[in-house]
C-alpha cells in the first residue's frame, strides 16, 4: 500500500468565498451604477444637443432592453417580438395625443396597460411553446403588428408613414420641449425602472423566473405555477416596453411601423445576450453598444454594419457569457 487513506471530509474543497463577501461586491456594483446614473443627469450641461439626444435614445432603448431581459434573460423565454410591445406603447401615445388631443402624461398609463394587456393575452396561449417555437411565434406576432400598423388598421395608425407631429409633454405647466428637458424625463424614468429591476431580482417573483428558466419541471414540482408566472413575466416586460414606447414617441415625434419591425426585436434580443442575460449593467452596456455605437459611427456609413457584424462575432467568441454577465455562481 503506497499511501495512507485520509479522512473523507477533506475530499471536498471548500472555497473561502462567503455569501457575505459576495454581497459587498454586489453592493459596490450598485453604488457604481447609482453614481453613473447621477452623472448622467449632467449630460445636458456638458454636451451639445447631438449627444443629449443620443443619451436620451440610450435611456429609452435601455428601458426596452431591460424589459426584454425580464422575459428573455430572467425567465428564459425566447421573445423575438419585443419591439411589438414597444410599438404598442408608442402608438397608443401617438394616437391619444395626436388624434384625441390628450396630454402626453395622461397617455402613459394607457400605453403601459395596453401593451401589458396584449403581452398577457398573447403569452397565455403561446407559453406552451418552447424555445425556438416560441421565438417564431413571437416573430409572427411582431410581423402581424407591423403589418396591421402599415395597413392603417381601423384608419387610425396612419399606414407606413405612421403618425407624425406628436406633441411635447407638459409638467406642472412647463413645456418639456427642449432636448435637455426630454432627456431628463427619459433619464428619470430609466432611474425608476432600474430601481424596479433591482427590487425584482431580490424578490421571490424574480427568483421564480430564474427557477423556470433553469428547470421548468423541477420548478413546477416545487409549486411554481409556470403558466401564471410566465404570463405575468410577459405582461410586466411588455408593460415596461410600452412605457418606453411613450418616451420614444415623444423623443422622435414620429411613430411609424419601421421603428418596430422584427429586426428591432432581433437587436433587443442581441442586446440582452451581448450584454449578459439577467444583468442590469450588462444590458445597459449592450444597449450602448448595439444602439448607440452605430449612431456614433454614422460617418463610416457603408462599413459600419460590416464592422458591427464582425464585432458581434468577436464579442460572443471572446465573452460567450456576455460583456458583463450576471454575478452568479459559475458552474
Amino acid at each position: 500500500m503506497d499511501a495512507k487513506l485520509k479522512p473523507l471530509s477533506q475530499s471536498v474543497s471548500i472555497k473561502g468565498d462567503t455569501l457575505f463577501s459576495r454581497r459587498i461586491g454586489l453592493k459596490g456594483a450598485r453604488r457604481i451604477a447609482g453614481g453613473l446614473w447621477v452623472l448622467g443627469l449632467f449630460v445636458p450641461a456638458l454636451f451639445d444637443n447631438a449627444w443629449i439626444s443620443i443619451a436620451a435614445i440610450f435611456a429609452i432603448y435601455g428601458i426596452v432592453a431591460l424589459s426584454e431581459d425580464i422575459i428573455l434573460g430572467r425567465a428564459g423565454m425566447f421573445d423575438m417580438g419585443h419591439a411589438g410591445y414597444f410599438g404598442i406603447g408608442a402608438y397608443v401615445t401617438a394616437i391619444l395625443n395626436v388624434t384625441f388631443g390628450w396630454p402626453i402624461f395622461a397617455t402613459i398609463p394607457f400605453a403601459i396597460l395596453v401593451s401589458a394587456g396584449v403581452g398577457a393575452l398573447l403569452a397565455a396561449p403561446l407559453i406552451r411553446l418552447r424555445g425556438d417555437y416560441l421565438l417564431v411565434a413571437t416573430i409572427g406576432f411582431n410581423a402581424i403588428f407591423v403589418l396591421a400598423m402599415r395597413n392603417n388598421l381601423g384608419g387610425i395608425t396612419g399606414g407606413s408613414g405612421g403618425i407624425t407631429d406628436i406633441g411635447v409633454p407638459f409638467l406642472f405647466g412647463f413645456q418639456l420641449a427642449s432636448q435637455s428637458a426630454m432627456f431628463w424625463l427619459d433619464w428619470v424614468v430609466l432611474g425608476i425602472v432600474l430601481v424596479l429591476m433591482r427590487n425584482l431580482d431580490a424578490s421571490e417573483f424574480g427568483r421564480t423566473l430564474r427557477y423556470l428558466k433553469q428547470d421548468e419541471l423541477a420548478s413546477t414540482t416545487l409549486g411554481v405555477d409556470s403558466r401564471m408566472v410566465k404570463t405575468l413575466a410577459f405582461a410586466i416586460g411588455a408593460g415596461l416596453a410600452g412605457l418606453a414606447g411613450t418616451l420614444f414617441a415623444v423623443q422622435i415625434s414620429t411613430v411609424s411601423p419601421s421603428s418596430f419591425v422584427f429586426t428591432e426585436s432581433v437587436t433587443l434580443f442581441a442586446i440582452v445576450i451581448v450584454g449578459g442575460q439577467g444583468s442590469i449593467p450588462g444590458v445597459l452596456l449592450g444597449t450602448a453598444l448595439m444602439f448607440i455605437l452605430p449612431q456614433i459611427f454614422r460617418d463610416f456609413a457603408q462599413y459600419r454594419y460590416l464592422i458591427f457584424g464582425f464585432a458581434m462575432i468577436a464579442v460572443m467568441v471572446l465573452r460567450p457569457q456576455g460583456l458583463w454577465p450576471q454575478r452568479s455562481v459559475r458552474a
Partner: protein
Amino acid sequence: MGTFIQQVFNGLTVGGIYALIALGYTMVYGVMRLINFAHGDLCILGAFIGLTMLTSTAGSGHPGPALLLLAFVVAIVLVAAAGVVLELVAYRPLRKADRLAAVISALGASLLIENGIMLIWGPEVAVFPSGLLPRITWHAAGASISFVQVMIIVASIFLMAALYLFVNHTRFGTAIRAAAIDQDAARLMGINVNRVIAIVFVIGPTLGAVGGLFIGIYYREAYFTMGWTYGLYAFIAAILGGIGNIPGAMLGGVLLGLFNAFAAGYVSSSWQNAITFALLIAILLVRPTGLLGERVAEKV
C-alpha cells in the same frame, strides 16, 4: 379552376425555394441546436456569385445551360467554403457556450455577409441576364407554368429526398443524428464530430446556394438584404415542419408557399403575411413542436 391550379403552382415554386433554404437551417439546427441566422445570407451570396459567373461568361459563345451549370458549381463550392469557414470562426469556439451566444454570433455573421455583399456588389438591385434557360411555358386549364418553375419544384423534391435518404439510411447519417443529440457521447462511438459538423456546414450551404441561385434565376434579381427575408421565411418553414426534421422542412416550406399564395390570392394581398403568420401560430398551438417535430416526452 385554372386560377386555382395557377395559385398552387405559384405557391409550390416559392415553397420549393423556401424548402431548399429551410433544409439548410434544419440540418445545422439538428446538429448544433443553432439557428444559423447567416444561412439566408449565404444563400444570397450564392446568387451573387452565380450572377458574377453568368455575366462574366455571357457572350462566350457557350450554350446557356452549360454556363448555368458552371455558375451553379462555382456558387456551391464558394458558398460551401464560406459555410465551413463560418463554422470554424464564429460557431466552433462557442460549441460549449450557452446556445444563444452562438445565435448572436450567427446574427453578427449575417450582418457581416450581408454588408460584405453590399460592399462588393453594391447596394442596388443586381439583375440577372435573361435567356439562360429555355423560355418554355406550358399552358393548361388556364394556368401557365414555366420551365424555371418546374425546374425549381423538381430540384427541390429531388434534393430533399436525397438528403432524407442520406441522413436516415446511411451510417454517416446516423452519425450526424448522434452528434446532434450528444456530441461527447457521439465521440465515444468513434464519430469524428468536427468532421460531421463540417460536412453539415457543407451540405446546408450547398442547398442554400442552389436555392439562392434559383431565386436569382426565377426573379432575375438579387439584392443584398434579400438573404435576411428569405432566411426568415425559410427558418419559419423549418419551424413549421418541426425543426431538425428533414421532411418537415420540405413540408413547412411548401405549406408556407401555399399559404402565401392562397392568402394573397383569395383573402387579401395586403394581409398576406399576417394571415400566414396567424396560421403558423395556430398550427404551433395545436402542434407545439411543428408538424413533424419530435414529440418525445421528457423522461424524468
